[in-house]
């Protein structure tokens, strides 16, 4: 299968990391920024790197952006440049355009311009941080559909020592436990104590929950809220 082609426009910390990560996974990556120093730095890590003005339609076209499957616009400092660049890339006929936004207004404008996906990392990280502070027992949370989440949650004390079927997680809360992450002590190759995660995928109803287990569950957000408070 032919590797997908990506363009990353704007190589600040976020864009730079995206470009390098994509390239490290074997993708064809075209990196664009107006800073020569950054282009020099990234040129060894990506397929092609160009110094150019992202609002110059001809220069963007000549760089080959139109041939890319996905374009990621990660211009953070200047909203106007980001919006113009989005417009140019859409006009070039690129279907999948992902834009990093720095404000809700920025997000609304690029969404109206036809961006396929808008991301707001600062806001998303802030939300995640607050969730982590308020709910320390919830280690990870991914929304998989509106209202339904996949959650990594510390097993409530009430369930310790009980088999899954006796916990009522499914019958009372309508939540499915799809895996149990269990910390196992062991001695590593250097003879030191260590811990490793053992994944028990699709646990049976008779599987007992231990102290320190982490449950990977799927269910409605409201049900998970109820369960975490027990």
């Amino acid at each position, binding site marked *: 299968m032919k590797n997908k082609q990506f363009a990353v426009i704007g190589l600040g910390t976020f864009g730079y990391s995206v470009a390098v990560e994509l390239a490290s996974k074997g993708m064809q990556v075209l990196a664009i920024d107006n800073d020569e120093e950054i282009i020099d730095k990234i040129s060894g890590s990506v397929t092609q790197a160009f110094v150019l003005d992202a609002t110059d339609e001809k220069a963007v076209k000549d760089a080959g952006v139109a041939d890319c499957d996905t374009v990621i616009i990660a211009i953070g400092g200047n909203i106007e440049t980001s919006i113009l660049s989005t417009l140019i890339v859409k006009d070039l006929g690129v279907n999948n355009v992902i834009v990093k936004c720095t404000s809700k207004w920025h997000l609304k404008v690029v969404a109206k311009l036809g961006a396929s996906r808008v991301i707001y990392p600062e806001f998303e990280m802030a939300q995640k941080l607050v969730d982590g502070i308020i709910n*320390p027992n919830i280690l990870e949370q991914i929304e998989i559909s509106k209202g339904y989440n996949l959650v990594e949650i510390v097993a409530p004390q009430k369930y310790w020592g009980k088999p899954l079927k006796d916990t009522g997680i499914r019958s009372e809360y309508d939540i499915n436990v799809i895996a149990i992450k269990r910390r196992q*002590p062991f001695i590593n190759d250097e003879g030191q104590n260590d811990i490793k995660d053992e994944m028990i995928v699709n646990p049976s109803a008779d599987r007992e929950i231990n102290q320190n287990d982490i449950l990977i569950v799927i269910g409605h957000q409201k049900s998970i809220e109820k369960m975490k408070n027990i």
Partner: protein
Amino acid sequence: MAKTKEVPSQEYETMEMGKFYFLNNNFAEAVAQFESVLKINPANAEAYYNIGLIKESANKIEEAKAMYLQALSIKKDYKIASEKLNNLMGIEKDE
């Protein structure tokens, strides 16, 4: 008369007991043993590291970090404690 060198010290024996309980998933007793080690020798970095592991296993992340930091303050080149601390702080290995 001075004790012979072959007799294991109380610190060593208590540490071994702690490791035994740790490897048998008896974390409460293991912590008690490692804390006893620290009463005998407050500069035992390994005891702090082991308590850190147990706190991390129990998802008590802040307490685990404090233990790894204590271990590192005693033994600056404690590689595994440094790795565990970096991991909890979200710092990549090669950064």
